[in-house]
């Protein structure tokens, strides 16, 4: 037996449908029981690496493999995907979509069923796994009834049941809110300690994964491994941002202040970070220099709700309970909270997709309630999370024109308005392209464009950057900021703390159908009570402030964000 669970030897891979290779000269060894993070921007080949490990390549995705991969000392070319699945257990990105069984118990046992394990043995194994993962009370529940964290535990359980030697997690944080994500990382850590299995986490959110230590980070870029070293070593170099992976925020802040990061400072986690007094003083001094008093925002109310309440059919509890709030002209607001807190319901009621039971909505002082869903769209535009759910035409031009044409606008005017909207969104040169030729981010732009063409004054976006890496995230968000600067008020529903911190002027926090906080995002993310109730996570800048003895953490965070907005933004614009 080999001491390595995985051994890549000069491996290269090219997908059949693509002209260029996706992976080049991969040399990588992973010891039994080791914990590894594979990071890199979208398209760097990290998911392809994962598919090679679990056997989806060549089973589902065909292509040319050069070099070799040994799994447990055996050449993977001689193994079927089923052989591999007894060694490598894969948890895919979207735990919702990979839920196969009708109930939790069936999902846990799915692999066992396929291995023809007899019923009494299956029952026993399900019981063991459910005990380990604390799922016993949910065994007969359907996937739809579970929370995000429970779903994640079920998908882990589904591979745990087969007793594997290596767990492969493909972007485990993509669909989770910050606190659940934190728990997922803790769960993975426990799992590794309990089972002694090796763990590979493929993820671009480095800071969140480093909540629990990993042995090594493999950094990838354009199909090559550019770094393979301990987190402390890697974080003391500038390599991460060169590769389009976001480094932990506390390190960014230190770098702005001119503190040089060295591996002996143990930069991989804020809890272990060692700062000298000079470093601390330097940070404090820098923050004092960049501090600016904020100019107050406009207070001209654009959208206002008074005592808004709503209950879904067949539900007892109110989804919205007496919501009174106001959005001012030109603001960029984040609405945050756990799943089921009421944030999506709130935007649906505003758009007229659901009708309020009580309360009123005012737009520029006029009662909004009498208007239909279609009429409200002229004032408030709603952009869904997944662009594929909104696109119904083949060509970009037609997709953007659809809303106007359905309103019977004369064709000449349609052309004029569509052209204008396409130019704003930077899609004009592509106007005659089929939508299928676009990337995810470009599709997102098309959907935003198709709403903008109706000239709403407010845009509501549901998770505008879900599943995007740092570079694409920045592109989408900078685009939204430009729109905002052109006078469009923007409301974003999000789980993403970076997003709210960096781009929202203000955060409205929902919990249990009520608003529990309405203040700047820096204030929210440094308030542990609100953070806890809304299932968020304190920003690491808060911990950094504590570490350096800065009392007013909220101001510190705000100053950091303001500095970054003014000096560093827009680096990604091509």
């Amino acid at each position, binding site marked *: 037996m080999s001491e390595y669970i995985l051994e890549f030897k000069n491996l290269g891979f090219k997908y059949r449908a693509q002209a260029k290779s996706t992976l080049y000269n991969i040399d990588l060894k992973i010891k039994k029981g080791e914990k590894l993070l594979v990071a890199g921007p979208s398209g760097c080949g990290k998911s392809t690496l994962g598919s090679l490990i679990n056997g989806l390549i060549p089973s*589902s995705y065909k292509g040319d493999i050069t070099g070799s991969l040994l799994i447990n000392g055996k050449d993977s070319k001689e193994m079927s995907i*089923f052989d591999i699945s007894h060694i490598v257990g894969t948890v895919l990105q979207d735990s919702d979509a990979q839920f196969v069984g*009708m109930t939790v118990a*069936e999902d846990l046992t799915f692999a066992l069923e396929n291995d*023809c394990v007899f019923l009494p043995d299956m029952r026993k194994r399900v019981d063991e796994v459910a005990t380990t993962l604390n799922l016993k009370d949910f065994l007969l529940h359907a996937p*739809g009834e579970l929370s995000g964290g429970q779903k994640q535990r079920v998908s882990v359980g589904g591979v745990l049941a087969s007793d594997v030697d290596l767990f492969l997690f493909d972007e485990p944080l993509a669909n989770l809110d910050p606190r659940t994500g934190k728990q997922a990382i803790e769960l993975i850590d426990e799992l590794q300690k309990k089972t002694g299995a090796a763990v590979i986490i493929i993820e671009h959110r480095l800071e969140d994964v480093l909540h629990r230590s990993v042995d090594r980070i493999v950094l990838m870029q354009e199909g090559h491994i550019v770094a393979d070293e301990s987190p402390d070593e890697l974080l003391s170099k500038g390599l991460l941002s060169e590769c389009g992976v976001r480094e932990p925020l506390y390190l960014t802040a230190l770098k702005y202040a001119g503190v040089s990061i060295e591996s002996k400072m143990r930069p991989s986690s804020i809890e272990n970070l060692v700062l000298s007094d000079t470093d601390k003083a330097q940070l404090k001094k820098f923050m004092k220099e960049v501090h600016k008093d904020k100019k107050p925002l406009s207070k001209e109310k654009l959208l206002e709700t008074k005592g808004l309440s709503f209950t879904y059919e067949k539900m007892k509890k109110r989804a919205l309970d007496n919501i009174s709030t106001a959005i001012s002209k030109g603001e960029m607001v984040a609405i945050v909270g756990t799943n089921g807190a009421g944030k999506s319901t709130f935007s649906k009621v505003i758009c007229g997709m659901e009708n309020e039971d009580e309360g009123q909505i005012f737009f520029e002082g006029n009662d909004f309630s009498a208007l239909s869903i279609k009429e409200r769209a002229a004032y408030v535009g*709603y952009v869904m999370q997944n662009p*594929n759910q909104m696109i119904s035409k083949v060509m970009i031009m037609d997709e953007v024109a659809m809303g106007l044409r359905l309103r019977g606008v004369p064709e000449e005017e349609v052309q004029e308005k569509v052209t204008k909207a396409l130019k704003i969104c930077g899609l004009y040169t592509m106007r005659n392209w089929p939508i299928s030729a676009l990337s995810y981010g470009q599709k997102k732009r098309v959907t935003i464009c198709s709403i903008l063409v109706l000239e709403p004054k407010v845009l509501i976006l549901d998770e505008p950057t879900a599943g995007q890496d740092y570079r694409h995230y920045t592109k989408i968000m900078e685009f939204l900021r430009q729109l905002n600067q052109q006078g469009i008020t923007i409301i974003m529903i999000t789980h993403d703390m970076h997003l709210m911190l960096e781009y929202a002027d203000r955060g409205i926090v929902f919990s249990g159908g009520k608003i529990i906080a309405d203040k700047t995002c820096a204030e929210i993310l440094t308030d542990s009570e609100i953070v806890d109730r809304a299932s968020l996570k304190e920003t690491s800048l808060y911990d950094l402030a504590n570490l350096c003895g800065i009392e007013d953490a909220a101001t510190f965070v705000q100053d950091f964000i303001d500095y970054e907005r003014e000096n560093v933004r827009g680096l990604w614009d091509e």
Partner: protein
Amino acid sequence: MNNLFNYIERESPIHELTGATKLVCLLLWSLAAMTTYDTRLLAVMSVLGVALFPVGRIKLKDVTFMLVFTLVYLALSTTLVYLFSPRHGCGVYGSTTLLFGLSGYFAPTAEQLFFQLNYILKYFATIPFVLLFVCTTNPSEFAASLNKIGVPYSVAYSVALALRYIPDIQKQYHEISQASQARGIELSKKASLVSRLKSASSILIPLVLSSMDRIEVIANAMELRCFGKNKKRTWYMERKFRLIDYLCIVVCALLLVASITLTHINGSRFYNPFL
């Protein structure tokens, strides 16, 4: 939201039968109802079918949507039968009894009305049983039982999987339709039928496309967990046959026997009161 095909979790003697029993019963029952046009047997089966609802603890409102759908379909098809072949019954029963003193091609005859009564009864004999089956059979167990009666498990499992995803797809449809309405697609009764059909298609496209993405994910997830590895698989939800299961199958088999015997006695599939 409407429950189109939904298993309803309750405790009842019918829920406790194995999926295989219910499937075999359904096949026997439908075969019996299909074979015969004998009014007496069909009437008995209709009453029996409806009487089983309280036994399975299924309420009328659980199946309203499906029921209305079938009734509309039934009304449509009976009307069409009459329009296209208003004398079909006369041919079947070999006599013509004009009613209400009317004459002409479309004049009602006792034979035609009786034939169509039987036609309707056939629906009433089958539909309640089918609805009951759908409401009381856990899809996973259904898949297990399909496999048990010889259907390959990959086919059986895809049936279960389709049922598993119906609520998700309904939810997605609802969301997409809301967003499309905001863009100006009219789905309410204000719009004409043609434009509503057109609108529905512009919801279906995104629905299908986003479902395709999911299919790829689920296929991979299944393969990664050994689906398709062996020729056989075991089923966690499988239940053991009990005495009551055999009894039910025997009763349904007897119905089929009765149906065939009646056909033999009547000399045709029809019971003829006009002789």
